[in-house]
């Protein structure tokens, strides 16, 4: 499965469900400017755990928290390797 397109799909889905306006998902978009709040991120992470089978946030507590959308996608791509 293409990690990036799955992440994009979940961002869109959750933003729509929670009535948030999503910024264009470019690699250098800061997550804090994405339009999603922490509850939305929590939901995205939980749903990605189901669709991708990994939760890199819980798997490696020492890793740096992703800052940009590109980091976020990379975080999941690395976890899948």
């Amino acid at each position, binding site marked *: 499965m293409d990690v990036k397109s799955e992440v994009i799909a979940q961002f869109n889905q959750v933003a729509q*469900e*929670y009535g948030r306006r999503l910024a264009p998902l470019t690699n250098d978009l800061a997550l804090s400017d994405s339009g999603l709040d*922490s*509850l939305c*991120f*929590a*939901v995205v*992470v*939980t*749903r990605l755990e*189901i669709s991708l089978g990994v*939760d890199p*946030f*819980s798997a490696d507590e020492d890793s740096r928290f992703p800052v940009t959308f590109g980091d976020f996608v990379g975080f999941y791509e690395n976890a899948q390797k």
Partner: protein
Amino acid sequence: MPRNNPTSLWSSLASAGNLSSRIAVGAGASASWGELAAGSVLDDRAVKLHGSSVLVVTVDQFLAAAALIQLDGVARRIVLCPPDLPLEHVAFVADSAGTDLVVTDRIALESIHPRVECIVLREGQIRPESFDRGPQIETEWILLTSGTTGVPKLVVHTLASLAGAIEHRDALLPPVVWSTFYDIRRYGGLQIFLRAALTGTSLVLKGALESTAEFLARAGASGVTHISGTPSHWRHALMSSSEGLIAPQYVRLSGEIADQAILNHLRQQYSRARIAHAFASTEAGVAFVVNDGSMGFPAEMIGSTPDVDMKVEGFTLRIRSRRTASRYLGENSPNLRDADGFVDTGDALELRDGRFFFVGRQDGTINVGGLKVHPEEVEAVINRHPGVSMSLVRTKKSPITGALVVADVVLRTAPHTGEGGAQSLQHDILQFCRGELARHKVPAIINFVPALAVAETGKLVRRHA
């Protein structure tokens, strides 16, 4: 109307006029109250019963019923063990209750404790002769509730506290046949057992091996008029398509929060019946019954319920009455009542438009980023969705918010085949929740499951994280 103030179960039965009403358990065991009052299951060792602490730990409900009638007023203490009490807990309970004697139909228990003598009963063994009951004493009735650590808590009642909500029944009223999904070794079932015994009405109980459909078919054939169970019991009956086998006049729910969906379903199914939901717990006793068909209860019931003082403190309902238990048994037990005699039920309430609603257990809340969610309030919303039969809301750990809300949902019928059917239904239920709940209370995920585990208590199995 005068209240029952029984001195013992046996004396109440012995002094009653008509004892022809029967108690039937499963397809096999049945006797009239008169036969039970006159007979004996324990007679050849009767001498040991006087003033002893007796553990009644039978698989068979009928034997337990017979033993209760014989022991109350004779034994110092009766400990009622539910049939699913794990063997490893029996010794703990026996110790905590200072047990002298075990009455059981489980051979495995014969050597449970070196100090404790054991009477092993056989099925259907009621001897027609009575025994010398000696001077009547007030017996302590000990009921077990599951503690948070899994080890049972021993709750001390008397027949007077247990029977406090049972009103005298006019013999001229049309006959009543009681039934319950509960086991009589639990508070909810014991209430119905005592109600039937003390008012001389017939009682139909579920056999250990009977399915819900078999039980309801037998109850229907016995002409059951009054029947009680938890909302989970009732949802299960509605799902098993066996609810039409009975035509009760009175349907009673207790033990869990009765949400509007289950009240409406029962109202639809039993259009001629009175649908009531009661608030009662092993510790707090029977507090009140709500008869208006709506979930929750009118705020004015606090302060105007006869014989029961209620207050809301720290969001939870507190109850003081003569029906509450007096204490927990065993060393280092916590206080059951506060200094003013109130029992904290641990059930959280919310006041909306002059009505109190139960939102869930105070100790079962999910903390989503610092905001509290009661699983039961989310379930109540999900259960109102027309496609939903029942649901369980639980916590899921989240690295972002600490926890999230997740729902396991049993559908009335399977969704349309293919991924799309299930997905669109999930979406629909979530939309429904969004219209009713704060955003942090809306489940992050909805799983469709074929069934939900219901414990022997008749309540949904919840694992508190």
